[in-house]
């Protein structure tokens, strides 16, 4: 689960990460984000948050997933120690029976693009300044240079974060 490394992107922070499968890749990305932000061993799994995100493609799904995780910290003050995900393949648009996310209502009668969907369970605890030392504050994830690839060994990803 620790298969990630960071790379410099002038003012920003890039992360490269690997996974056995797509779900593992996403879990590694989640781990990387919180491992960079705080000293993870000090974070206990006291509570869990479940959420669902969708995306137009794998990359978009990853950004929306990490956005949601960052919101848990930035908006709710919740530090994530571990995150388990399940990903549904986009499949063919006509076979999808899932409702589109509420935000998609504004597209009116236009066809909704194929949606990737992910269910996550994030375990952790509320941020306590006296126990949790913050390292780098990751403020946002960007689409810039975003990449997800299948490799011979599994999956590989790259993302640039605003810090």
């Amino acid at each position, binding site marked *: 689960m620790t298969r990630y490394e960071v790379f410099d992107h002038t003012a920003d922070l890039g992360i490269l990460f690997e996974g056995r499968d797509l779900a593992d890749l996403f879990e590694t990305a989640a781990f990387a984000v919180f491992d960079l932000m705080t000293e993870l061993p000090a974070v206990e799994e006291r509570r869990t948050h479940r959420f669902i995100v969708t995306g137009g493609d794998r990359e978009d799904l990853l950004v*929306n997933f990490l956005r949601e995780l960052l919101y848990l910290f930035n908006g709710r003050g919740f530090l994530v120690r571990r995150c388990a995900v399940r990903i549904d393949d986009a499949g063919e648009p006509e076979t999808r029976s899932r409702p589109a996310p509420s935000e998609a209502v504004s597209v009116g009668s236009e066809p909704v693009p194929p949606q990737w969907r992910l269910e996550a369970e994030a375990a952790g605890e509320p941020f306590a300044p006296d126990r949790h030392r913050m390292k780098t504050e990751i403020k946002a994830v960007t689409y*810039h240079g975003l990449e997800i690839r299948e490799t011979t060994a599994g999956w590989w990803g790259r993302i640039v974060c605003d810090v």
Partner: protein
Amino acid sequence: MSITLQKLDEHRWLIPRSGGMRVPGILYASERLLKEAGGQEGARQVANVAHLPGIVRHSLAMPDMHWGYGFPIGGVVAFDLDQGIVSPGGVGYDINCGCRLMATRLTAEDVRGRLAELVAALFRDIPSGVGSRGPVRLSAKEERKVLVEGAAWAVAQGFGTAGDLETTEDGGCMAGADPDAVSDRALERGRDQLGTLGSGNHFLEIEVVAEVFDPVAAAAFGLAPGQLCVMIHSGSRGLGYQVCDDYLARMVKHAGKLGLELPDRQLACAPLASGRGREYLAAMACAANYAWANRQMLMHRTRETFEKALGLSPRELGMRLVYDVCHNIAKMEEFPVEGKPVRLCVHRKGATRSFPPGHPALPAAYRPVGQPVLIPGDMGAGSYVLAGTEYAYAETFGSTCHGAGRVMGRTQATKASRGRAIGRELADRGIVVMAAGKGTLREEMPEAYKDLDQVVEVADRAGLSRKVGRLRALGCIKG
């Protein structure tokens, strides 16, 4: 695709139109700054921005340009109101991140020997760092007022004086703010962060006027050698980030609708004339107003801390606002295009407005000399005060640089500073620094930034803004 730069003159480089570029790009830089701007990567980002519809004249990069994500940092671009777009990524996550310079009646001599005490008091009184909370928790109703009224809200609450508003860009309030365009998440994040400095490169610095280049302009700004000043660099905190992220997500989702081939998804945008474009502008104005209220509250707390720590009355301290500028913003402003004044939507991402003498947007006292332009340097480098120019108004949509600009990545800086005590090194130079984040001092080490003098020199020689004064750092608190 490699990008060829044509040298126009000593400080300007042209990226000719090619491929899907609608206009050429122009980089303002010396040879050295050009190298530090990230070479091909930086130039490519300037060229990418030139692909956007309704772009007017040029895609510009200021002398402190460094490559970022989507739009370059130090990028300036203007769009036609009918054909053009607005892009959350072209404004940046920290909407209305900016600088505020306050002058006092004191001199550096007056605080000699008490600097460490003063810095410690500021560090204690001004919330900074990750997860810090401000002095007020806003009710939903009050927060909406902040988003509509900006700095005036803070003044009405007793955090400052009406005079402070006169010397804030746009009076510290952007029109068209609609809190209904701001998501519940953004509102929640804004609830308790007003009056907090933030983390990363945000700071509050005690400075002294070390050198004056233009005595007339300096006098108009109320600055004299030896005078003690305070510079604040902060923005719209989590609320601004959330607004940017919310609209970026929406615009990426509907990018296909525009029929645009974007070279980078981070450039996602919406037509200025569309509902989504207008909604973003209404939300962005809310975040801009939040940032102005934030800096106003930070200034007020600084005032109180100085008075208390030094045992001075408000009159004795005489802390007043020289000016407040934003350097991450999109604004409707009028500029001459082909001889005629045209209203455009100017995006400044890591760029400062630089309005010339006589411009009606300036306070009366500054109108003869031009708008004060505040350029902070890296930790310990101090800052510059410049003045806006006719050249900038005519050529760069009234814009100039915004800071030193990073030259080293954060991990690179952390590695390069291994074995060094950055705080101690600064102390040896007489600069007292306190930081909330453990890694902040290393990441923000002076060598991680371009040489501020060099950036300002190019801005001055190219005519983007002219040098008025140089401030030296004495003490600094960082998030």
